[in-house]
C-alpha cells in the first residue's frame, strides 16, 4: 500500500499555549498556529485570539484581522461534520447543480462551498475531512452526506 495520509496536525491533548510555543522557533508562525488551533479546537474564538496575540506580541486586532481573512478559520465551533462541495466551473460543467437539492436537504452535516479540489476531470467532487469523492451523482452525494453524519 501507499503511504497513509497523516492528518496535518493531530495532537489532541495540546493546550493553546503548547501550540503557540511549539511554533515560536519558526518565521511567520501565525498561520501554522491558527491551523493547528482550528484543527484541535474546531474554531479560533475571541479568547484564543487574545492568547495568541499575547503569545506572539501582536495586537488582538492584528490577529483578528488574519483570522477573519481566511475561509478556513472559524470564529465559533460547529459540531457538525463538514462536507466541502466544489461549486467551481469545471464541476458546474459536469452537472454539479443537480447536487444542490441534496445539499439543501442535508441534516446533521454542514455543506460548505469550496472552489476547486483539483479533481476537475472527475467532478462533481467533494471532500469529507481528507477523503475525496468524485463522479458524484445526487444519489452518491446523498450517501456521502448520510455516511458523514
Amino acid at each position, binding site marked *: *500500500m*501507499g*503511504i497513509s*495520509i*497523516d492528518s*496535518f496536525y493531530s495532537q489532541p491533548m495540546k493546550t493553546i499555549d503548547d501550540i503557540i510555543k511549539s511554533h515560536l522557533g*519558526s*518565521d*511567520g*508562525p*501565525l*498561520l*501554522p498556529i*491558527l*491551523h493547528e488551533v482550528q484543527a484541535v479546537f474546531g474554531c479560533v474564538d475571541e479568547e484564543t485570539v487574545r492568547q495568541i496575540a499575547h503569545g506572539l506580541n501582536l495586537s488582538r486586532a492584528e490577529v483578528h*484581522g*488574519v483570522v477573519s*481573512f*481566511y*475561509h*478556513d*478559520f472559524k470564529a465559533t465551533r460547529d459540531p457538525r461534520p463538514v462536507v*466541502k462541495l466544489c461549486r*467551481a*466551473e*469545471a*464541476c*458546474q*460543467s*459536469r452537472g454539479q447543480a443537480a447536487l444542490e437539492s441534496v445539499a439543501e436537504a442535508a441534516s446533521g452535516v454542514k455543506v460548505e462551498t*469550496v*472552489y*476547486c*479540489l*483539483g*479533481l*476537475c*476531470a*472527475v*467532478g462533481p*467532487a467533494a*471532500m469529507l475531512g*481528507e*477523503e*475525496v*469523492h*468524485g*463522479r458524484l451523482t445526487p444519489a452518491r452525494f446523498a450517501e456521502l452526506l448520510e455516511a458523514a453524519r
Partner: protein
Amino acid sequence: MKVRLSDDAVALACGADAVAAAFIAAGCEVERVSSWGMHWLEPLVEIDGRGYGPVAVEDVARVMAAGAVASPPSPDEAGDRLWGTPIADHPFIARQQRLTFARAGRTRPLSLEDYRTTGGWQGLAKARALGPEATVEAVIASGLRGRGGAGFPAGVKWRTVAQASGARKYIVCNADEGDSGTFADRMAMEGDPFQLIEGMAIAGLAVGADKGYVYVRSEYPHAIAKMRAAIRLSADLVAPFVIELRVGAGAYVCGEETSLLNSIEGKRGEVRAKPPLPALKGLFGCPTVVNNVLTLAAVPWIMAQGPDAYAAYGMGRSRGTMPIQLAGNIRHGGLFETAFGISLGELVNDIGGGTASGRPVRAVQVGGPLGAYHPVGQFDLPFDYEAFAAADGLIGHGGLVVFDDRVDMARQARFAMQFCAAESCGKCTPCRIGSTRGAEVLDQLIAGVDVDANLALIHDLCDVMKSTSLCALGGFTPYPVMSAITHFPEDFVVREPS
C-alpha cells in the same frame, strides 16, 4: 501477481483504495504509483504494462484473470475504457511530449530509488558543477516562462534575485493552484515530489538562497502529505538548502505572489503594491524568487538535458512544453503535456474526444476563473501565450474547462463576478464593490429587467475593473464576463419566461 495502481487524489476520489484492498485480499501485491493522468480511466490498474480501467471492486477477479494470461487487448473504439492495452502505447500517452511528467504513472512517488534510477538529481548535480551564474544562464536560454499564469521568463527573474543584495534570499514555490480546471501542480506534488524539490534546490543554488518555502493550498491534503514526506526523505540530498512547507487557508487570492508572501509572514493575504518587486523585496523583505510548481519542476529536466533541448519544443516565444489540463465536461479528461502550439480544437476534440455528455461543445474556458470563454469558432487558436492574449484570452495555468450546449453563458458571467466578490482581498474598490454590483446587474439582466441598460452597465464596470485593479483578480474578471457577452450574445437578451 503484481498490480500497479495510483494513489493520486483523482484515483482515490474514484475509489482506488477500495480496489487496492480488494486486490490485496485476493492475494496480489499492490504497488501504489503516480497517476498516468488519464483521469477518465481511473482507477486504472496496470499489470505487466497493460492497463485495465476504470476498475471497480467487482471487476477485480476478472482483471486478475485477464492479467494472468495476458489475454489480447479488447479494443474499445471510443476509448472510454481500457482492457489489456499497453498503457504507454495508448494514443493519449503516446501523443504527449512528457518532460515534466515523464515519470507520471511509472514511479512510486516517495521512492528515492525510483527517482534516482529515472534520472533524478542529475539536474542538481549539473547545476552544482556549473555554478550559479551558468545555471541562471541555462534557465534563461531554455526560454522557460512562469507557468503560474503571467508567463514571465523564469531565468530573468532568477538573475534579478541573484544580483540583488539581501541578508537572506528565499525560494518560494507557489502551490496555491486555485484555478478551477487545473490540477497539474497537485499531480506534480503527489506524483513526483522529489522533482519539485530538486527544482527548488537548483533555484536556491542559482540565486544564493538557502531556504525555500512551498505554499500549498489547504484543499490539497494528499499533496501536503506527500510533499512533507518527500521533504523529510530528501533533506540530506538538497542540504544546505532547507525546505519548509506552509499550508494555505482557503483564499484564492493567496495565489497572487505578494498576497502569498504576506500569508507566509502570518498576515492577511492582501496584495502588495508593486514596486518593490518580490525579486528585490519579497519574503520578510528579502530578495525572493516566487515560481509556480510547474516552473520549478521543469528545471531539473532543463539542467540535465540542456536548455537547447527544452527550447527545441514550442512555438514563438512560448518555448518548451506545457502540462495542459483537460477538465470539465470532456470525454477523455486528464493531464496532457505537449509542446506549445497545439490548437484548442485538437485538444478538445481529437485528444479530449469532445464532451463527456456526448452533446455538442459550446464553450471552453481557458486559464481558470479569470480566463476567457472561447467559442468553437476559435478552435484554431494555438496554445501559446501571445496567441491567446491576442484573442482577448489567456492560457493562465493551462486548464481547459469544456461546457456543452446546455451552458447558460449569462450565468457563467454572473458566476465570474460572484467568484471575484467572494475572493477579493478587499484592497481596491472596483474589485471589492464592483464585482458584487456586477453580479446584481447580471441577476437583473438574467431576470429580463432593462437588458440593454444593464449590458451597458456591465461594459462600464468591466472597463473600470480592468483599468483600476491592483491585481489580476479584479483586473481579469472582465475576461470571462466580456468574452461571454462577446461570443455568446444570444444568452444576453430578454428570455422567454421559463
